[in-house]
């Protein structure tokens, strides 16, 4: 590795002073792409003919990057890792992609994901399982699994991701990198294949907090094609990045972060929570106040089911345009209904089908009040409880997941009733549309783990500054996965 392991600003400098050309960067990135594809199966499409299109003053000009396969890319296969869009080549770019193109950024691949983002493991995509570059026997988590693996393995400094529950922030933690989802609507969702529109966020996976600021600066902004986007022209994340966070007040939720909540805690969980509390000490050393706060445990326990109900309901509707009639492989049958059924039966993975059935069930007139409407009410209560804390605190901190990346062979049961809420708590960020960033904060059994910082809507700068200060006080900044181990 020569350059792709560096930060955006470093690469930009070397491009400017003529040490390296964009062509050399592209070829290095493509070479790494093929290695990571071989080892981790991280990509759906590799742009072997990628080339520099235009030169601009942007920090991103001439630098390769990856696009999650649920961003519509004009003229390039975009499948959302689903067989229902096996050969779909869009004729329009997602807003985020067209913004990057106009700045001269160079996409070199489309990254694999859980089918349409419905899944948190990186194992359900149409092209197979993504393996964690730190340990190929483990998962990346999802759904931005390919993007996380590629950035962690040093294929390029950043890749686009999307986050409906924790789809950027959990894979970032499992792969030892930075995952940032800005406030809802800061980045236009136009061209992002929808999963659950009220929870979907665009975002980015990087190895440096500053890089996350640079990329989001480039792709954010009000978009007349997305009514939920807002004007952030007054926000300059990179320019205003500031590591002086003394006096900032953080809180963490006792019901999630206290080891005493978990009677059957595994060694991993113990180590993870201890590591989290060690990081809080660093926060204090940086001059920040850290308080433990209690939130109604009923609300905390409700998080996973609220997410399940709302996300499945919206997904059922959002994915109903997949019929194979206008685009996607045509199903077989004597009439459109049979053709559509055949298309969907063959196209969707079992996981999606299960979720679509749940979504349909909770939306049915006789069930809607009990499930969907109640989930919406609970969502509001959870968000209000957190917003109440944001009146007093600058940000919430939490450990990501219950430890490091899980084994792919499923030998460790993921669904533990005790730890379910902890596993899923990043969904709070999606419920409220809060800016939320994960950064690496250590290792457990030689595997990276992460910490998350989440703030009030529109306070992205504050959240990034805290992450930036913390990142600078730890040893995990810019780390690259060794791509070792595994049977493949």
């Amino acid at each position, binding site marked *: 590795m020569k350059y792709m392991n560096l930060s955006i600003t470093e690469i930009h400098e070397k491009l400017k002073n003529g040490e390296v050309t964009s062509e050399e960067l592209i070829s290095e990135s493509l070479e790494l792409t093929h290695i990571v594809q071989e080892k981790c199966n991280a990509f759906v499409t590799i742009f072997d003919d990628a080339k520099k299109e235009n030169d601009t003053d942007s920090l991103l000009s001439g630098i390769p990057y990856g696009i999650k396969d649920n961003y519509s890319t004009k003229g390039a296969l975009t499948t959302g890792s689903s067989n229902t869009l096996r050969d779909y080549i869009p004729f329009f770019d997602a807003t985020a992609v067209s913004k990057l193109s106009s700045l001269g950024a160079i996409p070199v691949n489309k990254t694999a994901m859980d089918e349409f983002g419905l899944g948190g493991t990186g194992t359900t995509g149409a092209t197979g399982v993504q393996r964690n570059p730190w340990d190929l026997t483990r998962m990346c988590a999802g759904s931005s699994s390919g993007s996380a693996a590629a950035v962690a393995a040093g294929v390029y400094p950043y890749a686009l991701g999307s986050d409906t529950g924790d789809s950027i922030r959990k894979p970032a933690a499992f792969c030892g990198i930075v995952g940032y989802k800005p406030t809802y609507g800061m980045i236009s969702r136009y061209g992002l294949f929808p999963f659950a529109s009220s929870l979907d966020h665009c975002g980015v996976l990087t190895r440096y907090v500053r890089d996350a600021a640079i990329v989001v600066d480039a792709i954010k902004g009000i978009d007349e094609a997305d009514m939920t986007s807002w004007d952030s022209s007054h926000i300059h994340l990179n320019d205003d990045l500031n590591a002086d966070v003394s006096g900032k007040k953080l809180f963490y939720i006792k019901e999630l972060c206290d080891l005493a909540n978990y009677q059957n805690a595994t060694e991993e969980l113990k180590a993870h929570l201890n590591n989290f509390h060690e990081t809080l000490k660093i926060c204090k050393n940086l001059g920040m106040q850290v308080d433990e706060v209690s939130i109604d445990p009923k609300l905390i326990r409700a998080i996973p089911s609220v997410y399940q109900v709302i996300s499945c309901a919206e997904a059922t509707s959002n994915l109903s345009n997949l019929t194979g009639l206008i685009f996607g492989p045509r199903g077989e049958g004597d009439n459109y209904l049979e053709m559509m059924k055949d298309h969907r039966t063959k196209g969707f993975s079992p996981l999606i089908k299960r979720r679509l059935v749940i979504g349909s069930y909770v*939306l049915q007139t006789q069930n809607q009040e009990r499930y969907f409407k109640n989930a919406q009410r609970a969502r509001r209560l959870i968000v209000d409880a957190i917003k109440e804390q944001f009146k007093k605190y600058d940000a919430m901190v939490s450990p990501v997941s219950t430890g490091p990346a899980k084994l792919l062979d499923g030998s460790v049961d993921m669904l533990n009733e005790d730890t379910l809420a902890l596993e899923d708590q990043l969904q709070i960020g999606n419920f409220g549309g809060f800016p939320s960033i994960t950064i690496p904060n250590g290792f457990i059994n030689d595997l990276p783990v992460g910490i998350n910082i989440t703030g009030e809507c529109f306070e992205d700068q504050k959240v990034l500054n805290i992450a930036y200060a913390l990142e600078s006080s730890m040893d995990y900044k810019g780390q690259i996965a060794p791509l070792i181990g595994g049977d493949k």
Partner: protein
Amino acid sequence: MGKYNVTIGLEMHCEVSKTASKVFSNAKNEYTDIANSNISPYDMGFPGVLPVVNKEAVRMSLMMGEILNCHPPKYMYFERKNYYYPDMPKNYQITQNPPEECAGMGGYIDIEREDGSTFRVDIDNIHLEEDSARMTHLYDTSIIDYNRAAVPLLELVTGPCLHSAEDAVAFLEYIRAIYQYCGISEADSKKGQVRCDVNISISEDDTLGTKVEMKNVNSFSGVHDAIVYEVKRQSELKDAGRYDEVEQETRRWDEETGTTIRMRSKVDAIDYKYFVEPNIPKFKITEEWLEKIRKSIPELPYERKAKYMTNYSLSAYDAGILIKDINIASYFENCINLGCDPKIVANWITGNILGYVYKNDIEIQNLFVTPERLTIILSSMAKGDISSKQAKELFSMVLEREEEPKEIMKKEGMQQISDDTTITSVIIEVLDENKEQITDYKNGKTNMFDYFVGQVMKKTRGQANPVKVKEILTNELANR
């Protein structure tokens, strides 16, 4: 309408045709016969598209709410109606879901019948939604035109408050006129811009009978015929003691056979799984905006009708015909602005012109006899250059030949002879040739007078001014 109480409720869908773009996409909102030419990725439901609300369409929907005396919404938002059908490529329709807040709720409008009596129609709601693609079903295949997908559509729902086919049509005609007057829609049934669902029940007393819904009735005459048919069908079943066979169901009006055909029963009703559209944030409807909209409501058809009656002394019946279609009213007003006599123009429009327009199934605004050409014909008549009989002939010739009235008058030598000397000389000629008939006339056969007039007309090829002819003829006969 027979011995049973008939109760009718209407759902009138009208496409908004006067916005530049569609309601949720930036494709052009324009009717065209070239299929799939006005479409955007949104209209075909490609992955990653998002709806963007057309503010002008919202303004129009709120204006209709105001005209219909509805409560305006505090917040405007939309809902998804989920169902699978090839005319809806996303397989959900973005609409509003009353009684949840929508463009207008709980209003009324008073309608005037031709005989001058009035009746009140309760408006349950009016809401804004996107239209589906247009499907044409052929023998063994169906074709889809996405031009219509995402065109703004206003659905107006009445209470079960109408009691006859005539009232239902009078209501629909008036609402159509409002759409036209307000510049919201051409409301042209031929372009499929107006479609109705009709709910009908019959009963012996004040309670409501079993409601039968008829879907997609595409013309007002269809609404009339469908009501008459369905009332007869239900009445016959009731007469025969088989009212239990009238089921709460959805039927389709079949224009060709003039019958209704069962589509589905209430128990097979689709569960649309409505939920609030997450991609369109709720937005507040301010009192300031509503006030601005109220002030911008143009003169409505009944206001214009009253004006015609007062200012031009037209009968309620004639004024009612003129205001029914804004294009007819505009035609009328253009003629008046060009200097025509209002009463004469009104007679011409309600008689000759509409007779021709309806018979030939064309639009008055496309008629070759424009207000300018009609004015030339009528002013020639007023000046006495041509007789009223000639004016009618000229009108037909202009339409037939598509030539200017002046050209035809010149070519055909069509002018009225009013000159005394010329008429006198013709009369003398006629009298000289009919000496016996003069004797008969003098002996008391007064009807010979008309014979002489006829002969004069024959010699002048109908161009002699009949009033003058009678006047001079009376004198000349007295002198003999």
